[in-house]
């Protein structure tokens, strides 16, 4: 399965049509996208332009109406439900706008969750947690229940949770939408740093001008189509 691939994410003529009370809504209307390993890409566009839909299609959370998605050179629509779940667990880190964390668990436990599912050794787990907590700067909150953290802190834990299992791809749908600008900037810097250090591929959607500026590649979506695609 570990075949050579040039693009870590590739879509071909990707379409998604929703039924809204019998009226077809074309959320994504033929997206051809190629993202190289290690890119730090922002997905921007007006509300309703199809950002979330596109990211869900790429993550394999949603099924496309037409077109194909390859992740690490594998076509995900050919995978079974259970294979896809495992693939997601091992290769994609998610950061959502909110409700990222398991509310009853502590910071440490939330970060540990996926590694436990993967069956990572306890020692390895602890090393990685220690390291990532340093990076996100929440060492002292290690054993705090996540619902008792601020929104910014929670999003940082979400990043740590997404990254600690060392997936190849991080998908983040409006990770800063609920944060003030200081926190947003802070979070983005952290993500950028990690991108730099680990070489993970980042794809995040945003409305935030500030966030767009920090990206190395900016894709603008409009009416479900790529309107603009620039590398800096």
């Amino acid at each position: 399965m570990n075949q050579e691939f040039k693009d870590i994410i590739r879509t071909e003529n990707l379409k998604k049509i929703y039924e809204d009370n019998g009226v077809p809504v074309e959320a994504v209307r033929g997206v051809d996208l190629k993202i190289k390993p290690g890119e730090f890409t922002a997905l921007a566009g007006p509300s309703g332009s199809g950002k979330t839909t596109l990211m869900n299609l790429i993550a394999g959370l949603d099924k496309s109406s037409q077109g194909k998605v390859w992740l690490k050179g594998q076509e995900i629509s050919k995978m079974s439900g259970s294979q896809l779940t495992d693939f997601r667990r091992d290769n994609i880190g998610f950061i959502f706008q909110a409700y990222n964390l398991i509310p009853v668990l502590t910071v440490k436990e939330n970060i540990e969750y996926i590694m436990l599912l993967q069956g990572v050794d306890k020692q390895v787990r602890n090393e990685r947690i220690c390291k990532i907590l340093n990076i996100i700067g929440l060492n002292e909150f290690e054993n705090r229940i996540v619902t008792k953290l601020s929104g910014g802190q929670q999003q940082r834990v979400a990043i740590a949770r997404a990254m600690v299992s060392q997936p190849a791809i991080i998908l983040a749908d409006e990770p800063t939408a609920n944060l003030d600008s200081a926190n947003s900037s802070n979070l983005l810097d952290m993500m950028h740093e990690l991108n730099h250090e680990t070489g993970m591929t980042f794809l995040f959607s945003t409305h935030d001008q500030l966030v767009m500026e920090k990206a190395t590649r900016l894709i603008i979506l409009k009416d479900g189509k790529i309107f603009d695609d620039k590398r800096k």
Partner: protein
Amino acid sequence: MLLFKIALRNVLRQKRRTILTMLTMGGGFVLCAASIGWADGAYGDIIYSFTSNQLGQIQIHSEDYLDNPTIYKTIVDYEKVGKQVDSVEGVKNWTPRIYVGALGMVNQEVSGVQVVGIDPLREDSTTNFNNMVTEGEPLPSLPGYDVLIGKGLAKVIKAELGDSLVLLSQGADGSIANAKYGIMGIVESGEMGGDRMNCYIDIRSAQQLFVLDNQCHEIVITVEDISSVNSVTSSLRSTVKSDKLDIQPWMVFAKSFYEAMRADMNGLWIQLGIIILLVAFGVLNTVLMSVLERQREFGLLKAIGTKPGMIIMQILLEMNLIAIFSVVSGSVVALGLLYWLSNYGISLSTPMTFGGVEIQQMKATINLRSFVIPLITVFATTTVVSIFPAVKAARTDPVKTMRTN
């Protein structure tokens, strides 16, 4: 372990809901346990007093005697049979009896009576017979012309202690059986039909009167433990090898009593069914609420790679954790309640009669099944009721639930 941790914390997080659910489950558990313990106690008492009072728990007769009792259907050489009975484990005691119908007369008052020939010593050690002699004296250990009569019979023939009872009947050889006895005691067995008919004489006198040398009609057996009646019956059947003899437990020879008992027990099961239904609704309410309000959480869990089975497990675990708390705390309460009921019981203002046995006081018993049955039903109900919502939760579509706004 992780699942357990999440489940436990979820349960602890929703304190109010957990406590309410625990009240339902624990309440149901306590009610079930108390009902069973209560019923077992009451039934145990009823069965015990019903059977120890004269009937015994196992009886031996000549074949066909129970269906159509006659003087001729006897157990021959019963002492030998008795020795075999004694050799069976679980047997406490046995006592032989002769039953013959007769006319009885006291001071010109005549009535049909049932003459019961008993072995005074054996009868007392088997059925505490002498305790039922409420007036006068029990039969002496040596045979003579002494008789005890039932209280109801005494009333019918206007007999008093010291009066003579003349019996007229027929021996097994067809000859006239006629003898006169001095009434030395009144028997109150609590079984009214019997007390209106029975008069008791020494079995050796009866054998002579009715020409039944070395024979009896019935051997009554008591067992050490009333719940082992069936197994003792089967070992008796294999030990006392005679196809001419019929060995039956009380469920057979007191069939109508047994069936009344069982019908009553069915009432208990219906009662338990209703309790379980209430518990089920409580559990369903809780599990539906907790699943519905946590859709996003399940969406997240699925998005980041949790398999559906784990989510089902997690919900079942959560509900069963509540069940464990409920059962543990319910057991403490039920134990206390049953302890109290088994020690003090409830006195009935008007005594209840069941199968001719008068019951003045009802007491519960503390036995394993009073706890095990509710425990199993609480866990089973919880699991069964939770499984549908759990499967639904496991099917949560992350795309729909995670969509913000």
